[in-house]
């Protein structure tokens, strides 16, 4: 081949790479625009485990060959929590049970979760006659490690079952039975053999381990050492299995995934210095939103040092509140009554649309398509602050929304 040509083409190529390539490549989105990414201060061992968990969460897709189903709701964690963010009607799941809190009497009928999809050749589960149900739109998964690191004593400090301060708000903790594999930590306070739940819309999962094992088996039909049997359906407790050998996910993968959830960074607030945002923040506490959506927490001693003694801003008290008739689906979980929902964290709220396909699907079942709508649904203990919100001037409302969108 002719030397000159070779040299010039190679030259062009190298120059291209040296000078322009980086410019020709799409830039990285700013850290505060995405939810994915580790907390600061992880050791290199921890980073390795984080990456392994990231793969298990975002890339591991289950099929009938490697354990999906036979009854399931979705095929991977990432299908429901895209970019670690909130979900969509497509990934919304259904739980069924009953309206009193004596425990789910439909467990023998495949409760609590409806596996509404099935691998080919299998018929999905139906909600049994007489059961009540509620829909759950996936929440975001960020910053959960900080919430897990809070001690039960810290959470219980805000409980006010008899509304002794007379503000109309009486947050309570959900108490749930621990699964067999559960490992109690010194920061847990056990009441009558039950533990405080803090994950899930009704706070039915005690920690991220509990949540993850349930997600594998209930959402995807993937068995693990911790939950070794496929979810029951239609009154059959150990239904037809698939042909994948159990456990369908290795314990090490489950542990990596839990570590990933624990060390996902907290969403970073945007436009903090904007005066409208700052005034919105003031309004947020003035009208009583912050009574449930507790802005600030600080962790104490904790095994993952990157999470210990850290102040963070989730805007939740992790407690259950009676949200009134319009959010009452007639379905209970643990001690959580039909109208009771855990205050969801509001961090990352402004980024929700980026994982929900461009529109908001807020509240437990995604029924609210805007922040304003979500506020309007606030009843029960939140009725007063809803009324306060409705009484704001247009400009004040706008600032409040700007603040919420900056989260």
């Amino acid at each position, binding site marked *: 081949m002719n030397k000159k*040509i070779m040299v010039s083409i190679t030259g062009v190529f190298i120059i291209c790479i040296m000078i322009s390539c980086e410019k020709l490549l*799409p*830039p990285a989105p700013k850290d505060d625009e995405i939810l994915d990414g580790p907390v600061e201060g992880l050791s290199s061992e921890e980073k390795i485990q984080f990456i392994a968990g990231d793969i298990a969460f975002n890339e591991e897709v289950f099929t009938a060959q490697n354990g999906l189903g036979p009854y399931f709701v979705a095929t991977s964690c990432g*299908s429901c929590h895209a970019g670690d963010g909130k979900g969509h*009607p497509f990934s919304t799941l259904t739980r069924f049970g009953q309206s009193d809190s004596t425990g789910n009497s439909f467990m023998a009928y495949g409760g609590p979760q409806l596996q509404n999809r099935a691998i*080919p*050749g299998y*018929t999905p589960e139906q909600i049994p006659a007489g059961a009540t149900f509620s829909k759950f739109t996936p929440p975001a998964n960020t910053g959960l490690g900080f919430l897990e690191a809070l001690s039960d004593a810290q959470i219980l400090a805000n409980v006010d079952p008899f509304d002794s301060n007379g503000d109309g708000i009486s947050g309570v903790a959900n108490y749930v039975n621990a699964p067999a594999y559960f490992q109690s930590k010194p920061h847990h306070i056990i009441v009558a053999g039950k533990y405080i739940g803090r994950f899930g819309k009704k706070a039915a999962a005690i920690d991220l381990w509990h949540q993850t094992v349930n997600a594998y088996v209930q959402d995807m039909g993937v068995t693990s050492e911790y939950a070794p049997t496929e979810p029951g359906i239609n009154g059959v407790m150990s239904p037809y299995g698939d042909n994948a050998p159990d456990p369908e996910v290795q314990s090490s993968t489950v542990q990596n995934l839990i570590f990933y959830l624990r060390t996902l960074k907290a969403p970073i607030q945007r436009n903090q210095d904007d005066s409208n945002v700052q005034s919105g923040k003031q309004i947020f506490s003035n009208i009583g939103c912050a009574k449930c959506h507790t802005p600030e927490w600080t962790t104490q001693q904790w095994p993952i040092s990157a999470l210990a003694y850290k102040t963070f801003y989730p805007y939740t008290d992790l407690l259950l509140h009676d949200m009134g008739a319009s959010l009452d689906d007639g379905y209970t979980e643990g001690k959580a009554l039909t109208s009771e929902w855990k205050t969801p964290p509001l961090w990352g709220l402004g980024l929700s649309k980026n994982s929900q396909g*461009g529109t908001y699907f807020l509240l437990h079942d995604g029924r609210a398509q805007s922040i304003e709508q979500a506020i309007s649904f606030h009843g029960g203990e939140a009725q007063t602050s809803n009324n306060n919100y409705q009484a704001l001037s247009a400009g004040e409302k706008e600032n409040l929304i700007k603040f919420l969108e900056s989260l």
Partner: protein
Amino acid sequence: MKQTFLYNLHNMKKAILLILLFLNLIGYSQTDSSFIKRIQTDTSNMKLNMDAVYNRPFLQMGKLPVSIGGYIEANSSYFGTDGVTEGLSFQIPRMTIFISSTIKKRIKFLSEIELEEGGKEIAIEFASMDIELHPLFNLRGGVVMNPIGGFNQNHDGPKWEFISRPISSTTIIPSTWSNVGFGIFGKYGRNNLVWAYEFYATNGFDDKIIANDQNRTWLPESKKNKERFEESFNGEPLYTAKTALRHRKIGEIGFSWMGGIYNKFMDDGIELDKKRRIDLFAIDFNTTIPVIKTTINGEWVWASLDIPTTYTQQFGDKLQGGFVDIVQPIIRRKILGWENATINIAARLEYADYNVGTFRENGENISDHIYAVVPGLSFRPSPQTVIRLNYRYHWQTDLLGNPAARTAGIQFGFSTYF
């Protein structure tokens, strides 16, 4: 059987031996050009996409009834997605060898063996025997390339100005898609027109196309099932039919269809499910605008599958996509001693939607699609060799329609017949 022998040649040693032997021959041809002569490709402008397997530069050795050819590709690329770059990497995506022989005057055998990614995989892309009975009626059997779209049969690297194969032609039509089977083909030509058809029954897809780690309907998944060269997944043939028409001055248009059953509806004589179909329909076209010599080459494909409604919409039941390549020669003359050299500028626009439809839950559009634009520059010292520089930019949107992941990169490489 010859085909099975060739297929079983997964043994690396044998392949290396073959390559060495072949390279020797080429070396030999350079010293004694009277023994080995190059069979030029037909440039009469009457060849169709479906003729591509035979219309390649072959080397003929003396009076031996065997001719041999092949091509190799080598690239380097520098890509990044949303600010995360994978750095610079080098690839030999494929090296292909083809051998054709005339067994009897009207019985031909042709095989194409591909070594992918530096020998990581060896595949028989084509290995079939043609028996000519009448121009309008010929038999072909063995490992055939299903004639769906234009690219699948006309995929040789040196023919294209772009380093990456078209997205829709590799992920909706899983090029190179070949299977064991039999069929008929024929051709009729008159004046400036040629018309041709092909029809094959082969082994085909399996249910992994809707159960794979791509988390979307992914037809290439069936290529992983090498068993398909030995037995059908479900005992149902995949039919492929194509008809194409070419006018010497206007161009070519092809219509093709491929369809069959992809699921295992029966096992051990026990019925498990109903038969579920997959059908693909494709249009391919190419033309050269007179005077300015711009070539336009493209393909469009639609696929539809019968997927149980109780499964998940993660796996699309309708797919579509296509590409258009526009190649404009800007210099065509003797360059630095190469007689027939050309420099082209080119652009490819491409698109693939893996899930056409709406969510059952709320009636909103399902996304899961990708768009790409690829401007490029190529230098062809001779028609058989291309040195190419491409810049690629693509936008990939997930199922829910969230902000697209943007990927871009520079690719540089060559592809040549040898």
